Structure formats: structure tokens, C-alpha cells
């Protein structure tokens, strides 16, 4: 295992220490692993909390700040945080108008946030929850855990954060979040596995001439493995299921996201392929993100997210955001 770390068990807290030092605009609790804004938003506004396993940086901690999250709860690497910590974060940022929990659809995240919401209600804090499940690589069904929450989480946190910032109430913010989740889809692939520090070796073996299509963000193997292909073919394999499942044309916000070890030069190349395919499918990219936004430690690969956009979403997208991981208009 080749990593810039000391001991595997200290990675999270030592990294959070760096976040604290590098970002005086954030408060980082090294006990609970909760990151909040140093300056809380005004009383009476809905607060937005997200969290999940670590190893996906900048998600979620890098998205705390004006116009996006109020708090992020960092679990151990690839492990959902515990309810007490989510509850602590929720309590810390509640400004009397309720709190939205943004939860990626994994059993662990759903259960822990559910328990946290129960704890928060017991203390009289109103909690709304959106479960993000945008990954078209996973067959959805009533009888399964359903789709995973992946790239759309980034876009949703930005948009919902903007709505909360402009003073929308909890019901509207929750409704907005559900709506966004309904009209966004993602799909990812990996060229290499990632290595969880505590495991010390790659989660799966991927031969030099193979790739995994339909990968998640936790080093889970994907839906299938196949021979390496050119970027144009990879783009097609990511875009086609998204387009088919989304079943919309018109304007869209699109993200081409790196899994952590893929250089920008490749991501922009992929973006060109993706944008061309979307155009052919009648989807017009009106806003885009290209870069590492929701990663999987040191995995090489990428994911594509497409969110059908409308004027309201574009207004919220263009609203100022000031976080370490996403910043504009400020």
C-alpha cells in the first residue's frame, strides 16, 4: 500500500486536522469528525447536513460553507458515521427552521441517519430527509437495497444549499431535494481498484487490460468487467444507460467526475466525449463540472452525472457558493 499516511487508523483524524488548519472558515471537531461553518447561517433558515463514509473528498466536508452545507459528518473510511454524531451535527447547526439530512442510499447511511433523525426529533428538532439514489448501474427494485447514491449528491447539495440559503422553508427544501433526486442519474467506471488503508491492499484485483463498468464509490466491484476500451466507448457505456433511464431531453447540468487518481487531462477528454453523446441524445449541457468531486480514495476512473435542469435549478446553481470544493459568485 502506497499512501501518504502515518498509521491506517489515524488517517481520518489526521486528515481532518489538516482541513482544520487549511480552512479557518470551517470548524472541525476532531472528536466527532463533524465539520461546520465557523460562522453559522442566520437564525430562521433551514440547515443542511450531509455525511457518510470518508474517502470521497471533497464530498462532504469540502462542501461546507455559504450556499451549500451547514455541516458534514465524516464517518470512518467508507463507513457511515454513527447516529450520535449525525445528531450532534444536526443539533449544532439547527437555526430553528429545521434541518435537511442528505443521505446517500446505502444501508449503513440510511440506518444511521434514520436513528439520528429519531434522536433529533426526540429533542424537538424537525428533520427532513432526502435519500439520493441516482446510480443507474444498479437495478432498482422494491425487494433490494435499491440504487446507490453517487454523483448527484454533489449537485443536490449545491442546489439545495442555495435554496436553504435564500430562506426557503423545510418543506420546500425537502420537496426540491426529492425533485432533484428524481431527475438526476449517474453511472461510474473504474480503471483500477482503490485501497482502504485499514485493509492495506486493493479491494479487488483488476488486470491490466480490464476495467469495471458500473462501479460505486466504495471500491465495490461494478456490474461487469470487460476489456479496456477507448474513451469514446467508455463514454458511451456511461451515457447510454443514463439517457435511457432519465428519459428526458432539454437542458441539463452535467458532471464528469474523477474517482481520485484520474488526472484532469483525462477528465476533460471524457467530458468532450460525454457532451457529444448527450447532444446527440437531445440533452443540452448548460452547466458543467469537470474534476474530482466525489472520489473513491485512490481509484482511477470516472463517473458521469446528468441532471435535467430548468430555470429554477439554474438560478439556484448560479447562486453564490463559497466552500473549499466549490466556489463561485462570491
Amino acid at each position: 500500500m502506497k499512501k501518504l499516511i502515518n498509521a491506517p487508523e489515524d488517517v481520518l483524524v489526521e486528515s481532518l486536522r489538516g482541513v482544520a488548519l487549511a480552512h479557518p472558515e470551517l470548524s472541525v471537531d476532531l472528536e466527532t469528525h463533524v465539520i461546520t461553518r465557523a460562522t453559522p447561517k442566520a437564525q430562521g433558515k433551514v440547515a443542511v447536513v450531509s455525511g457518510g463514509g470518508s474517502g470521497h473528498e471533497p464530498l462532504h466536508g469540502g462542501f461546507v460553507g455559504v450556499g451549500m452545507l451547514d455541516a458534514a459528518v465524516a464517518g470512518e473510511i467508507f463507513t457511515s458515521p454513527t447516529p450520535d454524531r449525525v445528531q450532534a451535527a444536526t443539533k449544532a447547526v439547527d437555526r430553528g427552521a429545521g434541518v435537511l439530512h442528505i443521505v446517500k442510499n446505502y444501508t449503513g447511511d440510511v440506518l444511521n441517519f434514520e436513528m439520528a433523525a429519531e434522536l433529533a426529533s426526540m429533542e424537538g428538532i424537525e428533520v427532513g430527509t432526502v435519500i439520493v439514489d441516482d446510480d443507474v448501474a444498479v437495478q432498482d427494485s422494491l425487494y433490494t437495497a435499491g440504487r446507490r447514491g453517487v454523483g448527484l449528491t454533489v449537485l443536490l447539495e449545491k442546489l439545495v444549499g442555495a435554496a436553504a440559503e435564500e430562506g426557503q422553508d423545510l418543506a420546500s427544501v425537502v420537496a426540491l431535494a426529492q425533485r432533484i433526486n428524481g431527475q438526476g442519474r449517474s453511472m461510474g467506471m473504474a480503471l483500477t481498484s482503490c485501497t482502504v488503508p485499514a485493509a492495506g491492499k486493493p479491494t479487488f484485483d483488476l488486470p491490466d487490460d480490464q476495467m469495471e463498468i458500473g462501479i460505486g464509490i466504495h471500491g465495490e466491484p461494478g456490474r461487469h468487467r470487460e476489456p479496456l476500451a477507448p474513451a469514446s466507448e467508455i463514454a458511451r457505456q456511461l451515457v447510454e444507460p443514463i439517457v435511457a433511464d432519465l428519459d428526458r431531453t432539454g437542458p441539463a447540468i452535467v458532471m464528469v467526475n474523477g474517482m481520485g487518481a484520474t488526472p484532469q487531462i483525462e477528465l476533460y477528454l471524457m467530458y468532450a466525449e460525454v457532451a457529444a453523446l448527450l447532444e446527440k441524445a437531445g440533452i443540452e449541457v448548460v452547466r458543467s463540472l469537470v474534476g474530482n468531486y466525489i472520489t473513491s480514495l485512490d481509484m482511477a476512473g470516472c463517473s458521469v452525472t446528468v441532471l435535467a435542469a430548468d430555470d429554477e435549478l439554474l438560478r439556484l446553481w448560479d447562486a453564490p457558493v463559497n466552500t473549499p470544493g466549490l466556489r463561485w459568485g462570491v
Partner: protein
Amino acid sequence: MTDTIGTATLVDWVTRFRDSIAENREWLTELDSAIGDADHGANMSRGMTAVVDKLASATPSTIDELLKSVGMTLVSSVGGASGPLYGTLFLRMGVSAGAVAELDAAGLAAALRAGVDGIVARGKAEAGDKTLIDAMSPAVDALDAGVSRGAGLADATAAAAKAAAAGRDSTLPLVARKGRASYLGERSAGHLDPGAASVTLLFDALADAVAGAS
């Protein structure tokens, strides 16, 4: 000697479970690497270490307090899917047991049944979904059966451990429908479920603790 277990045996149980998790950490991690995210060993190990440390600093004197302390510690130290699920198991066991000093075989079986029901209520997994339920349910069924036929605690928990192992092995060919392994679809077949594997360690530790106490 009456055929009951007290708090000391419960402490011995969770301590043995901690040690067994530590010994089998790599195995659990490997199982979770194949069809999950390679953290089940670390998760359970973190949780059980916290549980035993907690009990060492303050050992409750009643069964329910002890089980609830175990459950709360798991909930607040593990995270992931296994944290709330294993945590719920112990929390519900505590509620079922009540503020007593000892549990007989029927009491233990009832408590574990309540625990498993709690897990199902939280996780909504059914038998055959390739989750820890597939080891847990047969184990508790075996315990119930032992109690029905009037077996002692030692026999009944040994039978439960055997059933858990069989249940774990039954997950091998299954296609997962719950948890992280479900994302793999057909590719999840041919691997043991990591949670079912840790459950066998739980019942082995229980049988060993009971045997050690008798």
C-alpha cells in the same frame, strides 16, 4: 448449579466475541472486499473493542443495562450497516430481558428473538437475501428448538452456533438482495456474506462463554 447466565457470562461473551473478531478481522475484511467495501472487519473490531472498554470502565449490574450498554456502544462506535443492526440486536435483547440479574435458556432465547426481530424491522431483510439474517435466524430458531425440547443452555447455544455456521454457509450461492452486495447482482453469488460470517463468531462466543460458565 442452576442453568442460567448472569452479567459475568455476558461480559465473557462479548469479550470472547471481541477477541474472535480481532483474530478473524482479516477474514471478515476479505469477505467484505469480495462483495462489499472491505470494512466489515475494521467496523466490528472497532465496535467490540469499544464495547469491552466501556464495560471495563462501568459494568452494569443488571442484564438489561448491560445489554443496552453494549448496544449503545455499538451504535455509537461502528457506523456502517453493521453498527445499527448489531446495536439494535443488543438494545432489543436488553428490553426483552428486563432488569434481572440472570437469564435462563428461555429468557436468552426470547431476548435473542426480540433482537433478531429488531434487526429485521430496521434492515427489512428476509431469509435468503444474503445478509446476517441468514445466520442469525437459524441460530435463534435452533436455540428456541433446544429450549422447547428442554435442552440445557450449553446444549442449546452449541446447537445455535452450529445452525449459525450452516446459515452462513448457505449464503455462499445466494444472489444478494440487501446491503452493499446487492449492487453486484449475479456477481454476488459464490461468496459468503461477511455479516453472516461475523454472526457465527457471535454464536460461537456465546456457546463458549456458556460452556465456560457451567
